[in-house]
């Protein structure tokens, strides 16, 4: 209760000293008083009593609302933590030069779209679809780039994703990208569903010395790992064994896959050979990541004087209605009699 009150403030608190004036309707009434010889003459009546109290409350509301409105009430801006359905998703996007190519391995021409453009389009839809998802975007090529930290501002995330089809650079350094992608999750909220979405069209060897660090980080954060492998037509698949020697250098995709499988965290790899396959993979990810997530909401300071004026208006309308319904015992027949006397000449005139 105190917390709820603490959220409200007024701009001019001094005016609130006038609030006792709101009690005036309790001993004075806006209605015209009808003096009677004995108040006990009228039979007791529940409806009348209710209307009497309603009018009194309306007067209280009218005066109190006006004073409150003059004082300028507002609700403080605040950060509210709520729980919704969604996940923390760290998107790790490959920005190597090959992402500029189509799935066919060419430079895009005409209606063709590059792998980067396709993933941009589909990921953009993914970001807007659920209100309470939180996203972080990291790009990597030779070095990782922090694009957007973990946030629920989807507009910013979409803008970051719109930027991933900028021409890419250089090589693919998965290890450092993964490290930064993991660091995006932060430390709090272990019960939150977390997903690391790696979008790449190739892989690279992970240095065995770095592997240990990555394993430790995965074990600590325990994200669901999704690898969206944008496979160029003709290039080796994740599961293909190389013809010659089976070393990470010869088949980096396969060995990255094996490394991911060895991490002990939930892991799925999607091999996509075209935009439709990418879309299907993203729909699957969306369906899998459905868990309660606490999210924060910024509420701006809100002016409540309109509400107070509204209350006051409501009271005033009731009072005016009461005033219009007023009757007086003295005028009851007295006002009828003269008009009856006037009636005959009017009839003759007509």
């Amino acid at each position, binding site marked *: 209760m105190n917390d709820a009150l603490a959220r409200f403030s007024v701009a001019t608190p001094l005016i609130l000293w006038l609030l006792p004036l709101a009690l005036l309707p309790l001993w004075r009434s806006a*209605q015209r008083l009808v003096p009677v010889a004995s108040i006990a003459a009228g039979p007791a009546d529940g409806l009348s009593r209710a209307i009497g109290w309603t009018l009194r409350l309306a007067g209280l509301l009218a005066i109190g609302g006006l004073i409150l409105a003059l004082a300028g009430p507002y609700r403080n801006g605040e950060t509210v933590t709520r729980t919704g359905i969604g996940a923390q998703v760290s998107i790790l996007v490959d920005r190597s030069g090959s992402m500029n190519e189509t799935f066919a391995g060419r430079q895009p021409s005409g209606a063709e779209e590059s792998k980067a453009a396709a993933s941009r389009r589909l990921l953009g839809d993914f970001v807007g679809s659920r209100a309470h998802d939180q996203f972080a975007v990291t790009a990597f090529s030779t070095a990782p780039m922090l694009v957007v930290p973990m946030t629920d501002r989807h507009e910013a995330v979409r803008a970051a994703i719109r930027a991933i089809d900028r021409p890419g650079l250089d090589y693919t350094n998965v290890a450092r990208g993964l490290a930064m992608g993991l660091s995006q999750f932060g430390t709090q909220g272990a019960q939150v569903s977390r997903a690391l979405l790696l979008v790449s069209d190739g892989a690279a060897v992970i240095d065995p010395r770095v592997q240990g660090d990555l394993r430790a980080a995965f074990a600590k954060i325990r994200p669901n790992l999704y690898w969206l492998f944008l496979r160029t037509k003709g290039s080796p698949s994740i599961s293909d064994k190389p013809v010659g020697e089976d070393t990470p250098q010869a088949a980096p995709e396969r060995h990255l896959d094996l490394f991911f499988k060895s991490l002990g965290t939930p892991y799925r790899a999607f091999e996509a050979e075209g935009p439709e396959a990418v879309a299907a993979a993203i729909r699957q990810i969306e369906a899998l990541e459905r868990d309660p997530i606490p999210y924060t909401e910024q509420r701006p300071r809100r002016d409540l004087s309109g509400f107070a004026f509204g209350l006051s208006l409501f009271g005033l309308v009731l009072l005016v209605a009461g005033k219009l319904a007023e009757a007086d015992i003295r005028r009851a027949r007295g006002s009828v009699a003269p008009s009856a006397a006037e009636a005959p000449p009017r009839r003759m005139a007509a």
Partner: protein
Amino acid sequence: MEPDIVYRPRGRLPGTALGAHRGRDAGGLGTFRDQVPFLRMPDARRIDVRATLRDPFEGTHVRRFESRTAIEVWALVDLTASMRFRGAADRMDLVAALCGALAASATRIGDAFGLIGCDAEIRADVTLPASRRRGIGAAVAARLRDVRCRGAHADGMAQAGRHLVGRPKIVFVVSDFRWPEALIGQVFAGLARHDIVPVMLADPAEDADLPAWGLMELDDLEGAGRRTVFMRPALRRAWIARERARAETLSRIATAYGRPPFRLAGRFDADALTRHLIGT
């Protein structure tokens, strides 16, 4: 010129003051009453010759005549705040007209008129001792018109009986009788030896002319508070029935002490009061 109020006290009045009403005592003048033996009333001037001759035992008879006696007329006026009520007519104006007419009528036929005003106590500033002086009517009316009614209850009415001692009088109890039932009985009991004429002040605005619809904020003149009343036909019917029940209660109590109450509403009509007084 306001017609006189004609009243007739119940029974034969004791007393020697010469007046307009039938006395209990027999006297030498007036209406023939009976014949008595000469020895009971040795008045040689009123020997009834025919009756004396007709008597086989040769007794002498004397005619007796009814003496005419005066009576004191008192108005006992309730001056509580509720008498300030102003509906179709101003209640105190009605009272002033009634008492003025009573005073004029009483003094014209030689009766004395006295006035007692009461709220919680007897109001000395309003009270007038009985007086036979002619032309007192205008003074009484003026005094009542100027009087300020502020009392919250009418308990002084019960003390009025102690001020009205001696021979029976006619006492007009003028009030709206918005009293507790016990007080009504107490006041009438205190005046029981007199000829009580209750005059109930009413107003059409208090029953028949109540509005059928509307919102009224009632303010009790005697300071019992305020109340909002939402008038509607059902409530109006209940209200009128309640007023009628109250009038019947008063009528029941008053009739036990002699006369039913006279309802004074809207306009003072001396002839109506005369009819009421002669008819009851």
